[in-house]
């Protein structure tokens, strides 16, 4: 791993960071429209004092989180005090306070953090990499990053500051660990095609006119289905995820996933035939195009799904030159 140290306790936050943080807290606190008793309640519920986080600092954290996700409301909707209170109460307040305190470099918070999550994180890293050495290296590298080794504009930047508390801190750590492992994989591996599948082949091979029409019909069909169904198709047909994995992701039963997949396949085929018919195919030709080589459909579906651009997260920063996201 690239990280040099896995001893966050040896690091000391610069004073400027704390001062800037205090100023930011004050500015944010003024924008937090919550009653004092609610803030007091949230602060006590978060046990922020044990992490070395004052009520004012915690209120700044809440204001930052709320502003970032618009208090769980759709964009453009202004939350009122009640909605804000409901949103804050739905957060993992203790973990949020711990993460933010760690981001601020509070020693007490780090002690708690290490005590609670170190073994979990190492275990997840070892399971992910399949190697104890790689797992420990990945976990130490993440610790260093979390502690704020990396600085930007003279400030230590801890990824823990991006934790909003909507999910569990362990889940956030696991996701972050996966991302770091992905980045590491990118850096250490050349781009190789997947076994048995040449990803460049669809683009390189000249597409016959009939297949082009089929692709256009498939694109129209995919645009007409719901996002969850598209994810379902992608996860099952492209990623070869198991029904259990998909079901766990979507929080439904595996049997439900199976039924939905079958229903989706039938509906997709019917819509494809309709689109092909509208594109000038006769019925026999449309059925032949769909049934001639199912892999063609899968390849085109894969290519279509992979090459489609989305503006789902417009607010995100562009990837860095190193290829890392976020």
């Amino acid at each position: 791993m690239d990280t040099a140290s896995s001893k966050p306790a040896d690091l000391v936050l610069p004073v400027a960071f704390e001062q800037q943080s205090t100023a930011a807290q004050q500015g944010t606190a003024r924008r937090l429209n919550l009653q004092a008793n609610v803030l007091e309640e949230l602060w006590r519920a978060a046990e922020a004092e044990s992490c070395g986080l004052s009520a004012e600092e915690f209120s700044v954290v809440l204001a930052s989180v709320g502003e970032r996700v618009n208090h769980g409301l759709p964009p453009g909707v202004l939350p009122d005090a009640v909605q804000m209170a409901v949103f804050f109460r739905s957060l993992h307040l203790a973990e949020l306070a711990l993460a933010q305190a760690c981001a601020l470099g509070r020693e007490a918070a780090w002690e708690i953090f290490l005590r609670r999550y170190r073994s979990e994180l190492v275990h997840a890293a070892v399971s992910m990499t399949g190697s104890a050495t790689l797992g420990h290296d990945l976990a130490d590298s993440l610790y260093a990053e979390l502690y704020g080794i990396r600085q930007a504009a003279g400030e230590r930047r801890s990824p823990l500051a991006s934790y909003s508390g909507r999910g569990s801190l362990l889940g956030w750590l696991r996701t972050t660990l996966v991302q770091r492992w992905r980045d590491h994989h990118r850096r250490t591996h050349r781009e190789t095609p997947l076994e048995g599948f040449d990803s460049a082949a669809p683009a390189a091979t000249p597409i016959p006119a009939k297949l082009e029409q089929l692709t256009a019909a498939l694109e129209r069909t995919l645009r007409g289905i719901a996002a969850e169904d598209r994810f379902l198709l992608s996860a099952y047909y492209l990623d070869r995820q198991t029904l259990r994995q998909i079901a766990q992701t979507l929080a439904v039963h595996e049997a439900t996933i199976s039924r939905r997949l079958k229903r989706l396949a039938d509906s997709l085929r019917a819509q494809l035939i309709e689109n092909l018919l509208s594109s000038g195919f006769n019925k026999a030709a449309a059925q032949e195009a769909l049934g001639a080589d199912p892999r063609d459909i899968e390849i085109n579906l894969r290519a279509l799904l992979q090459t489609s651009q989305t503006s789902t997260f417009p607010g995100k920063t562009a990837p860095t030159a190193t290829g890392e996201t976020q």
Partner: protein
Amino acid sequence: MSERLQFEIHPDADQISAFVEHALPAHERERMLSHLAVCPECRAVVAFSLPNIEEPAKSMPTPARKPWWAQWRFAWPAAAALAAIVFLLLYFYKGANAPIASESSETARANPPRPPISPLQPAAPSAAPAVQGPRAGSSGNGAAVAADEKHQMVVSSRSVAMLPMAGRNIASSAAQPAAAAPASADQRAVTGAGVARGLGTGVGSGIAKAPSAVADAGLQQPVSASPATEAIASARPAESASAIAPAASSAVTVEVTNAALMPTASSDAANIAIDGNEVGGALLKHALPSHQPVLSMATQANRMVAIDTRNAVFLSKDGGKHWKAVPVRWPSRAVKANLVVYPVANPARSLRDKAASLTAMPAGNGMSAGDSSGALGAQTQSLKEAPDSSLSGTVTDPSGAVIPGTSVSVTEAATGMVRAAKTDDRGRYHVDGLAPGTYRVEAQAPGFNRQVLAAVSVSVSHPAVQDISLTVGAVSQAVMVQAGSSEISELAKKEKSGAARSASPVFEITTDRGEHWTSADGVNWTHN
């Protein structure tokens, strides 16, 4: 995980972890799904971020094999209910059969194999002509008829008769045994050695009017010559009949006749509900001093006079518990014990009255009027000096419908002899054995007014036919009189009414020579 680099905008770890933990709001989840649908990198991250993805798959717990009976969790109640139903069916089935079996066994115990009545059986054929002789002789000269000027209201020959209370409903059909036990009793009555007819005192027991055609083949004329008129057979067991007999014995005549004397097994034998064994069963408990079967018996109150098969006469003053031999004062053998009532008034009542009562045709007793007349006609013929004729007809209502069960009484104007009959199911009545003359015919049915025909002529040459039409009467006038009870009711009325011509009943012993000896107390006997 795809190894291709993707330079796109991806959700951060906070969003992905929140998505994995289903903590994203709906709109944000929708955007996440839209992105995941086209981003294999993020799908891979999501897949690796699943909480249990790095944990080894837990082995599915092997379901413990349950015992076979545990799988009957829902079948146990049904099985238990089925078992309960089967148990109840068996219980009730046994309960329904047990009384029959026990009763049969009791009957068997009550009817042990009797000793052969050889002393009587060989004597019966010889006794028959002996009895018949004097009877025939008496009927031939008319003196005997004069001697029988007393109105004997003999109720039954070889039967126990009862004079029920006036107005009491008597179910003749009840005499037909409905249960298996009485049915078996009937069979025994036909086939058994001794036949007796128990008396039902009307205390809930079925009472039937037995046909009067009791022509004992062994006795032939003698028995028929005795004015047997009505037989009431009780369907009750012998014990109950005998137990209640003393209470009603003031109006009861009990006679036990050995079946050997009735080899004809006449049709009414099948209607006999209680045979002699059962009546004798009571006696067997307190057997006669001679230890012989009872040939004939008569009961009045607690006094009982019995004749055994050796023609010895015994008297009991305590309902049969203790017996005492009666000194024989008659030269011949006693063959029959009766309880007779001597009329106080109207002594002109002749033997014809008795003979007429024999021919009274009860309706619904299983024997047609013709059969009755055929059986008894010859007997009554010998009792009558003049040739007889008959009166018949149909009783109808105003609409022309026949009225079964109508009581028809035919009174001879000259002698006052009363004959009674009932209409059968087709509304017909038939009274034969009538002497030529003028008769007063009365018909009465429940719900109809009484119809009286003052003068109906009966000639010798041909039978008279007189149809009767009844008019509908008031409901309050309805008197429920069932078939077979009219004569009994009439007799009971006569017994109880002030116009009754009888005194208290007395014992009468008939000898094989036809002599009649009477006694009020069973001790002092006088020849009549």
